[in-house]
């Protein structure tokens, strides 16, 4: 197994609140890695620290053998990590196609001069970006809405669009923050197929999810966060039986106050 991402003792505090403390985990190439935990356990904070939105107070991330820059989201994307958001964040005034094209930004180079003169390189790059974006819309299955303003798409399609936009940056690791939130059973099972396809096509997936059925059916390994600490990490079947995990979710003697 090849290590893709390694978190080493990551910690993050907001004032007196410790959102993450000493979280270490390793994600291998090609797996679907689940990150679960009760509300407020620090899952989204972990995402934000990983993708450079927050600067960690302790620890570091090693991606493909090099340390990730902290606090510089665009450099993290350039290294090959893309994310989606828990509450959908699309670019509301753009069409679905344009959203995906915007996601390809980091892999294109045209400068102002090239755009002004519309030189050969710029035109070719623009054509490739457009075609690639359309391919990705097809990949997630919403190409018929390519020219629809994205806020007019249905909820499930917006989620798919966000995934397509993230894939447009050609990531090696795709971090999905509760992709199934608010989806009905049919949409969730379609999403499961899509994530499996993404993994099959060589992209490692880091998944935050509340839908236990989805996590257990999809993930190769699962880590559980509670109060900012990692309390378990293993294959889903083992984690499911872990006592600390059960008490974290349902409340147990450890949490009796």
């Amino acid at each position, binding site marked *: 197994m090849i290590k893709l991402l390694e978190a080493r003792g990551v910690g993050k505090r907001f004032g007196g609140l410790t959102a993450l403390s000493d979280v270490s985990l390793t994600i291998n190439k090609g797996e679907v890695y689940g990150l679960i935990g009760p509300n407020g356990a620090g899952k989204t904070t972990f995402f934000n620290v990983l*993708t*450079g*939105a927050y600067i960690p107070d302790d620890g570091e991330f090693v991606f493909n053998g090099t340390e990730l820059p902290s606090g510089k*989201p*665009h450099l993290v*994307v*350039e290294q090959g990590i*893309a*994310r989606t*958001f828990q509450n959908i*964040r*699309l*670019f*509301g*005034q*753009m*069409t679905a*196609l*344009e959203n995906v*094209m*915007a*996601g*390809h*930004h*980091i892999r*294109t180079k*045209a400068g*102002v001069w090239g*755009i*002004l003169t*519309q030189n050969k390189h*710029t035109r070719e*790059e*623009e*054509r490739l*970006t*457009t*075609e690639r*974006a*359309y391919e990705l819309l097809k990949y997630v299955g919403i*190409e018929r809405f*390519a*020219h629809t*303003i994205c806020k007019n798409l249905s909820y499930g399609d917006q989620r798919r669009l966000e995934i397509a*936009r*993230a894939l*447009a*940056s050609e990531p090696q690791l795709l971090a999905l923050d509760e992709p199934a939130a608010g989806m009905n059973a049919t949409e969730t099972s379609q999403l499961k197929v899509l994530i499996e396809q993404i993994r099959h096509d060589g992209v490692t997936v880091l998944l935050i999810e509340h839908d236990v059925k989805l996590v257990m059916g999809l993930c190769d390994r699962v880590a559980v966060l509670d109060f900012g600490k990692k309390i378990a990490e293993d294959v889903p079947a083992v984690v499911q039986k872990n006592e600390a995990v059960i008490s974290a979710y349902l409340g147990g003697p450890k949490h009796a106050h």
Partner: protein
Amino acid sequence: MNELIEAVPFLGKRNPRLTKWLIIIVALVAPLIAAYFGRSWMRILDFALLYMMLALGLNLVVGFAGLLDLGYIAFYAVGAYTWAFLASPHFGVHMPFWIVLPLGAAFAALAGIILGFPVLRLRGDYLAIVTLGFGEIVRIFMNNLNHPVNITNGPQGINALDSLNLFGWNLSQSLTIGDFKIHYLYLYYYFFLLCVVGSIIFIKRLQISRVGRAWAAMRDDELAAKAIGINTRNMKLLAFALGATFGGVAGGLFGSFQGFVSPESFSLMESIAVLTMVVFGGMGNIAGAVVGALILTALPEILRHIALPVQEAVFGTVILDPEVLRMLLLSLAMILMMLLRPAGLVPAHARYSRPELLKGGA
């Protein structure tokens, strides 16, 4: 161009090709029509074109990149004063336009970056206040840099600026071909028209490019824009610099056309006037900026010509000065606009891609 065609009521959607030619013909013969009503109307048309350039540049910053800039006129001032310094008897320097205009644009872009750096982290109201302050700082500098060393000649301004001289062809002298005399206002009109068309092409190309999409992304959701790999710092600075460039060029043209610059021309009211044009026309699309600038330059002048005779006919005397009335009606128009058409007069959807590129592949 397509946005402009669609903006034409009734005809625009039914017969785009006819509309296109109509727009081109109107743009070409406009000064002839204006001349029929008098020279002053030709000057107004020339100014409308300058304001179009300003509105296009500001639209790039406010409409595309979503950075509310209330001090935009400062870049216009930088361009105009660059012309005044390098092409007037003030310092005795008389450089040709192909040096002064790019220099003015470059200085304005530099001013844009200087403004950009401290405001990188600001948004919305806070950004507006800082940019407003920046605009005032530039104006006050122009006003006071006559002491101890006289640089800007203070509130008196600088006059006798060189007029535009296109490689030996002086635009402010009427052209005589045989018995036929072309007034210099025509020459300026067509030169400015060329500049506006150039600006539109440039901005359209920017809009449908990775840069335009990055700006739109940043405007719609800055956090998400960062998360998909857009370097928002660079993109903001680029927006400020490029927007300022248009202001700088327009400023230089203004200096050459007017022959006189003073700090008075670059007051906060002017910044607001340009912003009003952008908002009135429709933020974030090129046609909006063009239509907004045209209407809001022409309307007050029409008002001036109507308000006086009407008041005299009705009341026998002039009760309200047209200047006062202008602000009143402009504000009223803005309020009605925000209530009835909050997206502006031309609420066109701006395109950020060329779907026609797909026909080959999909």
